[in-house]
């Protein structure tokens, strides 16, 4: 293990990348809240330096023989030692680069999107807070450190979802996101405690080493499942998936950054981070696979009936995160992480394009955007089609390569139901993606006035630049698949999957994608199409999907009938009877004691004199007789 050394370039870069956004956050909140332009400049320059550091780290360690660890002692008590520091390996470097790049692009984009907002400085402060927490999360050396920053990204997510807090639905959505993710985090924390008690150490590298194999299998399974609980919460997997669509109440760049590309991907990142540990428990991996598949299919069906452009991308995020979890759980580490990478690019791009449409057309409804002439915005429209093709797994865009890897991993499973689920998910994904594209591209009904008044050309250019960068990334990233796989595998302690050779698989996936595009074209694109999907024709199905499979209603019912009627009632009773009773009793006893004592206080000076004399006499008797 290497210890801190000031001259170490890697350490300096890591420290700079992880500390500067915090400094920007503090300075903005304390000093420059009243100066939006200064605040934005501070925040963006901090993230730029972080991006440069991340890039330098990535280049410097492109050929990394073994993971680098920098750590210092934080807590030591008995057998338990907790260290803090950086773990630098291909996975964390990659994630750091993704986070820094997307944070940077989104912050630049926000210059246009958030222009003129009264909370502009506050927005950049929170963005810096998020960037700091997320980059520390990626480089965390121990699980506890990771957990701390995991909670901090949850906090910044809460703050940013509820950014327009004067809107009731936004503050509600923030609370919902916070509480639901917290539910998973409780499980995560218990999992950490189990690891700590049984393993005596929270170092991620050691947990992934062969030493963890000496733990009893039951302990590994329980710990892995509890940690997976945190992943379910953070990555909005079944059954905690309904917070993410509601989180779309936040500003669109926030959705792009936190709720699609980076923060929700932290769950998948954690799964990849602990992949060798999870691999020790086939049962836990099976649960991950199931949860991923269920979330992927459920949210894909929800996306098929939504009219809100951001909601569609939110459902699609859940779905793709589910697919990544399936890829990892199927045993292909590179596939899952590669899809995470490509997804971060094209999903951020989708959200940022949606942001331009929303900003220009003044609404989230995709039919409305189509009628208001969304297709006349050339750059966002083209970028969105590129990203949508990537999401649908159409070559040569990045999503094709990563999805193919995951499907191959699923095909390698003995049970073919997983492959079927994956292919069905891919079909549905392509269908709802192109449904949205065709609705915006070929609007029905009379065109409405182009609501173009409230954005400047400069703002549009600022927003378009990140779109072009991301579209370029989406275009070329897929071809780096082999270099990517080589980079990611170096120093990787986990099992290496045997690549399955299914020559028919890409063709099957492509055929399904083509069929889905054709179906979407038939229902939404062609001249004279009614623009009503096949699911929307069946009322019960439409109802089921648009009510999110009644998951929220189940939560409502549980809240009303279990939490409020049983636990809250018990607590209220305890409060009223036991605690109030005790406090009231104490007060009452004091009052009556006072009333008794008050008898002695007549206010008569002579009475006091008498008492003094009597006491003196009694004292005299006591001492002298």
């Amino acid at each position, binding site marked *: 293990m290497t210890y801190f050394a000031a001259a170490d370039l890697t350490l300096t870069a890591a420290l700079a990348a992880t500390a500067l956004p915090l400094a920007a956050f503090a300075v903005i909140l304390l000093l420059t809240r009243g100066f939006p332009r200064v605040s934005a400049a501070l925040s963006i320059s901090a993230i730029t330096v972080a991006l440069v550091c991340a890039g330098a780290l990535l280049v410097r360690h492109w050929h990394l023989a073994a993971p680098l660890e920098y750590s210092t002692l934080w807590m030591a008590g008995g057998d338990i030692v907790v260290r803090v520091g950086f773990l630098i390996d291909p996975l964390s470097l990659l994630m750091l680069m993704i986070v820094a790049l997307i944070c940077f692009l989104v912050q630049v984009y926000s210059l246009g999107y958030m222009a003129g907002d009264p909370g502009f400085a506050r927005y950049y402060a929170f963005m810096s807070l998020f960037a700091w927490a997320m980059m520390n999360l990626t480089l965390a050396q121990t699980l506890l450190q990771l957990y701390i920053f995991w909670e901090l990204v949850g906090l910044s997510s809460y703050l940013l979802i509820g950014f327009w807090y004067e809107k009731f639905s936004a503050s509600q959505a923030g609370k919902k996101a916070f509480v639901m993710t917290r539910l998973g985090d409780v499980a995560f924390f218990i999992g950490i405690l189990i690891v700590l008690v049984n393993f005596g150490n929270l170092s991620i590298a050691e947990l992934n080493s062969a030493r963890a194999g000496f733990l009893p299998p039951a302990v590994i399974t329980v710990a892995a499942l509890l940690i997976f609980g945190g992943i379910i919460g953070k990555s909005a997997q079944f059954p905690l998936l309904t917070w993410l669509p509601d989180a779309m109440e936040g500003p669109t760049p926030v959705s792009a950054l936190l709720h699609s590309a980076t923060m929700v991907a932290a769950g998948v990142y954690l799964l990849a981070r602990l992949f060798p540990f999870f691999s020790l428990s086939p049962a836990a991996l099976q649960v991950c696979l199931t949860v991923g598949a269920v979330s992927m299919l459920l949210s894909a069906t929800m996306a098929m009936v939504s009219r809100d452009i951001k909601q569609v991308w939110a459902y699609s995020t859940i779905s793709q995160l589910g697919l990544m979890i399936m890829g990892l759980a199927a045993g292909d580490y590179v596939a899952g992480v590669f899809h995470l990478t490509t997804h971060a690019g094209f999903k951020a791009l989708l959200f940022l394009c949606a942001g331009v449409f929303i900003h220009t057309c003044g609404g989230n409804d995709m039919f409305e955007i189509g009628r208001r002439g969304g297709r006349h915005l050339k750059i966002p429209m083209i970028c969105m089609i590129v990203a949508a093709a990537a999401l649908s797994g159409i070559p040569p865009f990045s999503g094709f390569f990563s999805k193919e890897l995951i499907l191959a991993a699923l095909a390698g499973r003995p049970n073919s139901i997983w492959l079927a689920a994956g292919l069905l998910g891919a079909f549905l994904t392509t269908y709802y993606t192109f449904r949205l594209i065709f609705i915006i591209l070929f609007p029905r009904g009379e065109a409405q006035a182009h609501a173009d008044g409230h954005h400047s050309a400069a703002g549009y250019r600022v927003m378009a630049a990140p779109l072009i960068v991301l579209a370029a990334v989406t275009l070329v990233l897929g071809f780096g698949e082999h270099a990517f796989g080589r980079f990611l595998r170096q120093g990787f302690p986990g099992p290496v999957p045997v690549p399955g050779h299914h020559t028919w698989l890409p063709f099957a996936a492509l055929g399904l994608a083509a069929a889905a595009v054709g179906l979407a074209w038939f229902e939404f694109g062609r001249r004279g199409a009614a623009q009503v999907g096949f699911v929307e024709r069946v009322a019960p199905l439409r109802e089921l999907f648009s009510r999110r499979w009644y998951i929220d209603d189940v939560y409502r019912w549980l809240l009303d009938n279990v939490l409020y009627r049983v636990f809250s009632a018990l607590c209220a009773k305890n409060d009223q009877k036991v605690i109030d009773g005790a406090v009231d009793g104490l007060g009452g006893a004091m009052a009556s004691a006072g009333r008794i004592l008050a008898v002695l206080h007549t206010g*008569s000076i*002579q009475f006091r*004199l*008498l008492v003094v*004399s009597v006491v003196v006499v009694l004292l005299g008797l006591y001492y002298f007789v």
Partner: protein
Amino acid sequence: MAGIPFGHVLALSGILVALGVACATARRNLIMILLGVEIMLNGAAIAFAAAALRWQQLEGQAFVLFIIAIAAAEVSVGLALIVHLYHRTGSLDPEKFNTLK
């Protein structure tokens, strides 16, 4: 020392103090309370004088002189206060002066 035994003088002074306490606590008249206090002081002064005689020490007698002086001062101030109170309220009952209660 032929004369009154020391114990008797102490008993007298004790009785005087007790009478003073009784007077100061039982009477409902400020002047009588002041009188009671004076009697207590005199009781104490007698005990001092007797003790000075008993041990042949002059400090006891000096103390008596001090007590008499202080009693005179106290009586003058006390009576002045009582006169003032009587002018203000028309009463000498200590129970009436309870505005601070």
